[in-house]
């Protein structure tokens, strides 16, 4: 593999590459993110942003209590978020655990949602604490069951102890399993990496190893998709494009619950990576409760008043 011609796959070249990246000044990054959070998005641009955000949602259920019934309901909702208004776009994908992939795929096909992809969390999600053999099999299983997108976790323990090449090689191996069959999203779990310098390093590491998307979090660790973290990841994909002419996607996940939160994310994308990334193929939002708030705000714009929560479905 060529790794974009930037590293040769050896420990030394990876280490040297990540070492030469400029640092991130935490105070400055937080200030920039806070400034962008003051953007006031109104009327027509708000309506546009809500529909765009809906089309970017990876509608997610990742619970021990997930059942086929729950997953099927989620799939129906993903395809027709508002059954009374078919102008509402479908979401970006449905995101489930490995064993629910087949059920989700089957149900989506049965309702005519052939184009709506199923994303599977993989590699011993959320901790990633399993043998490589298990992680590879986890991924293979999900793809065979119909997953078109794999959301893998990185080995944060290895990253924090400086064994960067291990993290890198794991991603490369999962990339190989995915091949052309599935898109690969690499979850950095930024809440465990803690510093923005680590976020930048991990972003480049994942992109070099072959990620199609870099994703903030599993949703199981707080803090998750904070604005400064997303800012730094968006800067990383922007600068990586300058280097390679390849656009890598970004997926914030965890803690994005309201329309306001989602619109702030879109503003971050617009003014950092640029409008090219305002597309479900390059930006996704991992969420569950968010979708209903987007639908409520959408109704508010079309009807002029806030409807009762009973007018949006609870799945």
């Amino acid at each position, binding site marked *: 593999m060529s790794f974009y011609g930037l590293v040769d796959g050896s420990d030394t070249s990876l280490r040297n590459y990540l070492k030469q990246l400029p640092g991130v*000044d935490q105070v400055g990054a937080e200030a920039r993110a806070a400034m962008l959070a003051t953007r006031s998005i109104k009327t027509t641009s708000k309506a546009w942003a809500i529909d765009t955000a809906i089309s970017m949602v990876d509608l997610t259920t990742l619970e021990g209590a997930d059942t086929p019934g729950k997953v099927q309901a989620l799939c129906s909702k993903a395809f027709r978020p508002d059954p009374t208004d078919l102008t509402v776009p479908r979401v970006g994908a449905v995101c489930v655990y490995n064993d629910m992939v087949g059920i989700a795929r089957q149900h989506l096909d049965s309702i005519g949602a052939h184009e709506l992809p199923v994303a599977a969390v993989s590699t011993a999600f959320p901790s990633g604490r399993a043998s490589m053999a298990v992680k590879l099999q986890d991924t293979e299983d999900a793809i065979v069951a119909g997953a078109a997108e794999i959301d893998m976790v990185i080995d944060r323990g290895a990253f924090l102890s400086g064994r960067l090449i291990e993290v890198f090689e794991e991603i490369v191996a999962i990339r190989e399993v995915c091949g052309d069959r599935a898109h690969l999203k690499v979850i950095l779990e930024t809440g465990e990496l803690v510093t923005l310098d680590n976020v930048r390093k991990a972003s480049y590491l994942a992109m070099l190893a072959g990620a199609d998307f870099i994703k903030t979090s599993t949703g199981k660790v707080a803090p998750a998709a904070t604005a400064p973290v997303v800012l730094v990841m968006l800067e990383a994909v922007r600068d990586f494009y300058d280097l390679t002419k390849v656009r890598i996607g970004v997926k914030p996940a965890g803690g994005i619950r309201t329309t306001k939160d989602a619109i702030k994310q879109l503003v971050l994308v617009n003014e950092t990576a640029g*409008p090219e990334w305002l597309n479900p193929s390059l930006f996704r939002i991992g969420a569950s409760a968010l979708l209903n708030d987007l639908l409520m705000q959408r109704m508010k714009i079309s009807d002029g008043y806030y409807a009762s929560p009973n007018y949006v479905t609870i799945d």
Partner: protein
Amino acid sequence: MNFEYAAAPESRSVVKIDPVYGHFINGKWVSGSAHFNTINPATEEVLSSIALGSAADVDTAVKAARNAFDKSWSKLSGRERGKYLFRIARIMQERAREFAVLETLDNGKPIRESRDVDVPLSAAHFFYHAGWADKLEYAGVDTTTAPHGVVGQIIPWNFPLLMLAWKVAPALATGNTVVLKPAETTSLTALLFAQVCQQAGLPDGVVNIVTGDGSTGSAIVNHPGIDKIAFTGSTEVGKLIARAVAPTNKSLTLELGGKGANIVFGDAAIDETVEGIVNGIFFNQGHVCCAGSRLILQESVADEVLEKLKRRMDKIRVGDPLDKNTDLGAINSAEQLAKIRELTAAGEAEGAGRWSANCALPTNGFWFAPTIFTGVTQAHRIAREEIFGPVLSVLTFRTPAEAIEKANNTPFGLSAGIWSEKGSNILWATQQLRAGVIWANTFNKFDPASPFGGYKESGWGREGGRHGLSAYLKGSAK
């Protein structure tokens, strides 16, 4: 896909602007004999008619201030003075939106800045100094301190309310009374502040506001009944004031121009550095005495920084200052715009490379696109003279010593910025730079507790902090 932000204007309805204003003298509104218009620089709409203060108006104000000093203000304990300052600060917070909208209308600065910077910082200055009022004798200033008496204060148009707060809050906290003249183009928030003084029940004559132009300022500077002059403005006028005051007993503090060096070392955190450069020169349309108007880049990263800077500048939203999404507002006056144009034309004529952000400018009002000049050397006028607009001159250096040499090679010495991830580098550079305010890995950060002021032709004395207080006390050892 294109994410256009629909207009999000802040409502004007919170402010009430009178068609004509008088002076605020001895707690009352006094009609002026002559008037001039104040306009909204973003639209050239006439906002109001402002009284042109005569020498007689200044004399009445000084007498009122003297009377207030003798009869009421100097008799109050520090704790009682502090109460009034706390009250003013709270009213400013309560009326924050009104102040922000009015400031934006009269000055042209974006509502985001007046709302998030000017007004909260102004209130913070009153809170900070309110806390000092009853501690002056015991908290390290001096035990034998006394106020000067009547203070004449002349402030500029770039931060009308904030500069008023910088001047009035320490003067009142230390027991002085005030005759203040706002800048000719930006009187409205000072006149609103006069209403706040009334609302706070401040004794008559403690704060007097006389509006007007340079002739009014001159009447204040030359009035024999004034004990101290505090001026913020251009170095040119500062020198005139220094000459006028030299043969008198008046005390004097001056906060003047600058040509701040923003030095970027090769190891800087590039993305945040670019943000800092933008904030350093395009904050408040570059109408900032401490602006980082000279970018001094290490050659090893110069291309990368400039490329990112240009991309970032294309994202700067220029337009209606009342729109909450506007980043860069209007130039304050036709006169200032002419000055910016004159200096940028000189930059081009002297061979520097001009690049301006790709943005549409409104047709009415006074506007200037964010602009950088590359290939600037120490010999260019745009590297030496204060432009006071959204124009950045870019110079490069090879070694740290060269950076310091270039940074210090100016008659000014107000501010400087250092961008480096290496602590020892920052500490070394701060020791070498001859500037009153030095920021490391940030720019244009202000705090009432932090003294502000310049070296060389950037001024005399400090404002803010304990150092700023002592300027309003006579016989102060420090």
